[in-house]
């Protein structure tokens, strides 16, 4: 399966009379887009705003971040099973509005988390400070149940990204990136000398605000399975996870999965990137056993020499991570695992909730308990009152001067467990 990504660099977003993409700028007709979003009868109102790199702007609480993309050719459309019909994506060409993102915010629960600062100390830790962000602030109808509220905001984000993406369908890309996964047989013939590497992608799947969808299927209802890396680039995996801002994988992370990109970068050179195994992080211990049995079995069956395992979230998934690592190593397949740490504010506590000697090659996204000081921003998009109740904030984390003293875990994407960032710890 072969996919071309047509890159269209974006350096600005503006509101305008006509929605279009021109000379690197996205113009958005706000009324038209709002009307589209409000077709969902569970939403009462919606506000749109723009946050650009370097602006004194804070977005909070962030629910999801999505990169606008559009299928130019090949089967299916973006986000299959969610906002387009179920059809295998991942081949043909997809245009990417690189440098832009749709950010959704909404108070699904009172303690909703996630901060993106566009400048200052906090901006160093979130990759989304470098993007031109179209922010969608959603208000639900009164008395809407939480499950429905979460879904409404999730769909609003996908619809908006799809709407923006489609504006670029006919634009000729400046640069084209090509990714191809060949069959198991062809791979063996083509690169007999190279180590066969797989990627075990763990998906958050525990319940309300802790879910991930694959072609529209709730990941906790599925067994571990194989997916083509390019399918993920076309939106086959969508985040429904709103908890633990620093180490949740947003839809943007899935679309731009760094492990997939960095394995492709070495594909055919130092390794043969065989494919991606997705597995879940359920609460039921029997499910954990079954899913890790299955993922290790798939690693063995694919004849892998090595595998990278990435995680999502805190606590419970540590056990899935260690089970996967231990069982995959047990099959004779060498592993590197990617995680993050909760080592306490002083960095002296035990970092993970599980451990095993088999996990002897670990990449860390950093200590999420480390305290940072976020300066006051001129403008807050979203709900400023949540600053005081976000996870990790001190009581009164909102200082009199408008600055926030908080743990790194409040920053969206700060300690990402796919290895999206340079941040690490020792």
């Amino acid at each position: 399966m072969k996919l071309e990504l047509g890159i269209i660099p974006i350096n600005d977003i503006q509101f305008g009379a006509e929605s279009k993409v021109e000379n690197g700028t996205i113009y958005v007709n706000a009324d038209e887009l709002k009307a589209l979003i409000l077709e969902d009868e569970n939403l009462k109102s919606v506000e749109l705003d723009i946050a650009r790199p370097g602006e004194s702007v804070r977005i909070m609480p962030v629910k999801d971040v999505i990169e606008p993309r559009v299928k130019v050719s090949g089967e299916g459309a973006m986000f299959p099973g969610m906002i387009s019909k179920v059809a295998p994506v991942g081949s043909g060409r997809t245009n990417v509005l690189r440098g832009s993102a749709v950010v959704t915010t909404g108070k699904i629960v009172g303690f909703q988390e996630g901060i993106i600062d566009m400048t200052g100390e906090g901006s160093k830790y979130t990759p989304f400070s470098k993007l031109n962000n179209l922010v969608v602030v959603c208000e639900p109808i009164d008395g809407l149940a939480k499950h429905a509220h979460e879904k409404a905001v999730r769909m609003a984000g996908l619809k908006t990204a799809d709407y923006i993406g489609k504006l670029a369908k006919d634009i000729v890309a400046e640069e084209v990136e090509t990714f191809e996964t060949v069959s198991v047989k062809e791979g063996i013939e083509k690169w007999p000398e190279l180590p066969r590497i797989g990627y075990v992608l763990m998906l958050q799947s525990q319940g309300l605000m802790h879910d991930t969808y694959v072609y529209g299927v709730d990941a906790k209802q599925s067994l571990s399975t194989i997916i083509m890396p390019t399918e993920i680039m076309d939106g086959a995996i969508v985040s429904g996870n709103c908890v633990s801002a620093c180490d949740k994988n947003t839809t943007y992370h899935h679309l731009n999965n760094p492990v997939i990109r960095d394995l492709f970068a070495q594909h055919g050179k130092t390794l043969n990137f065989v494919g991606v195994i997705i597995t879940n992080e359920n609460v039921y211990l029997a499910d954990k056993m079954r899913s890790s049995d299955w993922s290790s079995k798939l690693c063995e069956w694919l004849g892998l020499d090595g595998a990278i395992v990435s995680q999502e979230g805190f606590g419970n998934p540590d056990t899935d991570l260690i089970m996967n690592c231990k069982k995959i190593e047990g099959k004779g397949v060498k592993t590197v695992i990617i995680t993050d740490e909760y080592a306490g504010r002083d960095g002296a506590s035990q970092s993970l909730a599980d451990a095993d000697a088999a996990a002897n090659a670990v990449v860390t996204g950093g200590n999420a308990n480390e305290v940072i000081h976020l300066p006051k921003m001129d403008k807050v998009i979203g709900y400023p009152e949540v600053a005081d109740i976000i996870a990790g904030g001190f009581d009164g984390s909102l200082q009199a001067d408008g600055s926030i003293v908080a743990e790194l875990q409040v920053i969206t994407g700060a300690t990402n467990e796919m290895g999206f960032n340079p941040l690490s710890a020792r």
Partner: protein
Amino acid sequence: MYRIITNNQMCLVKYGDQIQVEYLDGQSYMDVLVKVRDYIQNGWCLETHPMTGSLKPNQTPYKSVMVSDRPVDKEEFYQQEITIENGITACRKFQSIRKTPDWPQNLLEDFQAVDLSLIEGAIQKIL
């Protein structure tokens, strides 16, 4: 036989007449974990992970864990004992950073709803 150990009233109300629930009224997240440890040390089987959810143990006041009287072998016992001890250690770590705040009622209900949803996935499988 399955049993839910919980301090979440919403869980008791919704499932109290379908499954055994040991309801720890007014007790803490840590109290639930310690109670679960008692069960494990008395030969019960841990069915759900004690650290369900990405909410931190100093953030949500609620915890629901499922145990059963399914026989466990020595290896399973070790694993489960380590899992619950790690949970207790993590809980203690977060409590030492900051105690769980005294949340207002509307937030408490939100936390209950999320905790219920986390354990619900497991309950649905055994009902």
